[in-house]
């Protein structure tokens, strides 16, 4: 029985790989959510033929930057729910040598996504993924199946003509005035807690180590702090990591993108509303062009 099952599974696997070679088949494959979206973007970055000119690493805050406003030069490798160290490590370990890396520092204290890194650089599987399209995250059969069931069956059955056609991002794209006070209060509560000094020192050390790897490969980088709700800016969870990064990478010696001084509107205290993500993306584009 075991031999028969393994043979059948190998045949199914080979057939699916062959199927994926049909041009246009994967055009309707949608991602299932933000976690898979992170993985797909990271795998795409690693397996791309050419390096993008500019790469952004960071968290869901920089992830929200409007793609169109940034333009094709930018590859947004900021990961929802992540910190800049994960993206930096991907850049440092991949074969590509971008012309500039933009490092968003807001969520430095979030945990590094070791599972994602393990998935990307796992021995045997990672090289196989280059050869066998069925092993790539974006080609999962359920990415088509779920999209078809959702946008076909469920949408039709429930007559949801105005509902979104893509999966939800972890944050709202517009401010919901009814929810905003609760969401902001939640952020304020979590921002009152100062990070543990030992943990912060560890993150700074890791940041130094990864930027040193970029230096060694002569990849320039620039730091960026995404604008957040004014009430959060000077709270311990935001201020202490900022102070630590500034102390290690002072603006006199390292380049920092200077945002404009106007306040920005957010959906929850942290993430920019769509219009503001367009405005700030333009600032990032202009500033990086000025610096490099």
């Amino acid at each position: 029985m075991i031999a028969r099952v393994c043979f059948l599974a190998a045949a199914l696997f080979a057939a699916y790989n062959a199927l994926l070679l049909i041009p246009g088949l994967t055009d309707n494959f949608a991602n299932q959510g933000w976690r898979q979206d992170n993985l797909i973007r990271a795998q795409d970055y690693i397996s791309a033929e050419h390096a993008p000119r500019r790469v952004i690493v960071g968290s869901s805050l920089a992830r929200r930057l409007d793609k169109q406003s940034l333009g094709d030069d930018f590859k947004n490798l900021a990961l929802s729910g992540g910190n800049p160290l994960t993206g930096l490590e991907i850049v440092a370990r991949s074969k590509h040598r971008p012309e500039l890396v933009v490092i968003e520092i807001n969520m430095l204290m979030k945990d590094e996504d070791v599972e994602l890194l393990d998935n990307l650089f796992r021995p045997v599987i990672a090289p196989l993924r280059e050869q066998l399209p069925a092993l790539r995250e974006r080609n999962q059969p359920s990415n088509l199946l779920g999209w078809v069931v959702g946008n076909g069956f469920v949408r039709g059955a429930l007559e949801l003509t105005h509902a979104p056609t893509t999966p939800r991002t972890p944050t709202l794209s517009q401010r919901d005035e009814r929810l905003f006070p609760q969401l902001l209060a939640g952020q304020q509560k979590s921002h009152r807690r100062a990070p543990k000094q030992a943990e912060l020192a560890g993150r700074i050390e890791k940041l130094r180590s990864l930027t040193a790897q970029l230096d060694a490969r002569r990849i320039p980088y620039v730091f960026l702090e995404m604008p957040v709700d004014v009430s959060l800016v000077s709270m311990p969870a935001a201020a202490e990591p900022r102070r630590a990064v500034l102390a290690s990478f002072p603006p006199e010696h390292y380049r920092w993108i200077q945002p404009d001084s106007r306040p920005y509107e957010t959906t929850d205290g942290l993430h920019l509303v769509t219009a503001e993500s367009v405005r700030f993306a333009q600032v990032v584009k202009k500033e990086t062009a000025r610096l490099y």
Partner: protein
Amino acid sequence: MLFNSFTFGALVIVTFVLFYLPAWRRVQSYILIASSLLFYGYGQPGLLILLIASIALNTLCSYRVLKTDRLAVKRTWAISGVAANLLILGFFKYSPLVARMLRLNVSDTESIGHFLVTIPLPIGISFFTFQGISLVVDVFRQKRDVDSAHRIEARSAWSYLVDTALFKAFFPQLVAGPIVKAHDFYPQIRPKFLRDINWNGAFRALVIGYFLKLVIADNLKDLTFWLSYPQFLGFSTLSLVSMLFGFSMQIFADFAGYSLIAIGVARLFGYELMENFNFPYLAQSLSEFWRRWHISLSTWLKEYLYIPLGGNRRGEVRTYLNLIIVMLLGGLWHGAAVSYAVWGLFHGVGLAIERFFTRNSTRAPSARFAFVRIVAVFAFVTFAWLLFKLPNFRHVIAFLEACTRNVGQASDPVLIGYILVYSLPVIAYHAYAWRREHAGDAAPTREEVGAWKSFGYAACLTAIMINSGSPGRFIYFQF
């Protein structure tokens, strides 16, 4: 160390090779114990101190019970053993709850309150302390004429220590069960041979287990992520209900998957662990649900708590009370939070009410309404899972408010679509079992089933390769 990690795969392979080396047959138990300690202490070696202390304590108490003929001495050692296990569990698991209930000062880092809320919860403690209790109670209850299939023996103090270490630490079931009972495990400790391995059984359990965990539970995890406060507040009622439905499927796939992997790995080493799930969402009553869900826990609670409390032998009212007490404690076993107690109470009261209404019924339930009953039990159980997903009781209330408030809001068809896609295999898995249980003479022949079964297993294996989700911790690890 997670079952879905490459490190675990390497550990199993290395242990397997060493375990079956003919020259090392005499030290098979030592090999398994060494691997189990490596498995448990991997990344957190400090945890080993507690596990080793627990092994030593349970060996001492149960050995003294075994080796004395005087009932009073036996009883003293047995009570001491049970009490020590409960104290360990209480200290590590319930201290934060006690501190909060007593409203102790927890903000001052020098205070006792702060000390209590910062006690770390060692992984798997609920499982291995229950196994310790099982050992002490089983040797205390053991009669002289018990058959060899259930006999717990001690040839020498050292061999008994080794056996107990293996029973408590056996890595496939160490951190999340199935909870093995001493009288089921000790008689299985003997030299194992490669030729005796139940290869097909192990393979089937591993394929289905990994499929349920990696393909179903890990993908659903990312879809039910939104069932956390305050994220769920903005979703429509239909989306919220769909996510709760998805979580019900996820928790089954996660835990049943874990149990099957544990059973499959144990089979590779010649040990048979008890079945932990028997298609629970086919249950037509709550009592049947508990005979099908987390069977090792429900039978443990029945053997070591419900029956000693008097079971159903002390009248109707006492039976209802016993059911509620057992389920309440079962709820608290899952976690030191009010919501777990409420979850247990919810099930306990449900069981008591069900028993009240069926107490005089001698007729078998009509098959015509089987589907309605299955749906009703599933809805009850799924609603209760909300307390698992949202352990903060205020968030549960907020969820229910959002359900009533957001009725007219636009739903998210893509999210619902994905939840349906990942739930379908679980539904099909149960439908297959339903057909098997009820087909009777119309059941397909062995050959017909064989071909489809092979295809089913091959499809599961392929899905593991090409459609696994991002690796997530097993939900029951937190308990």
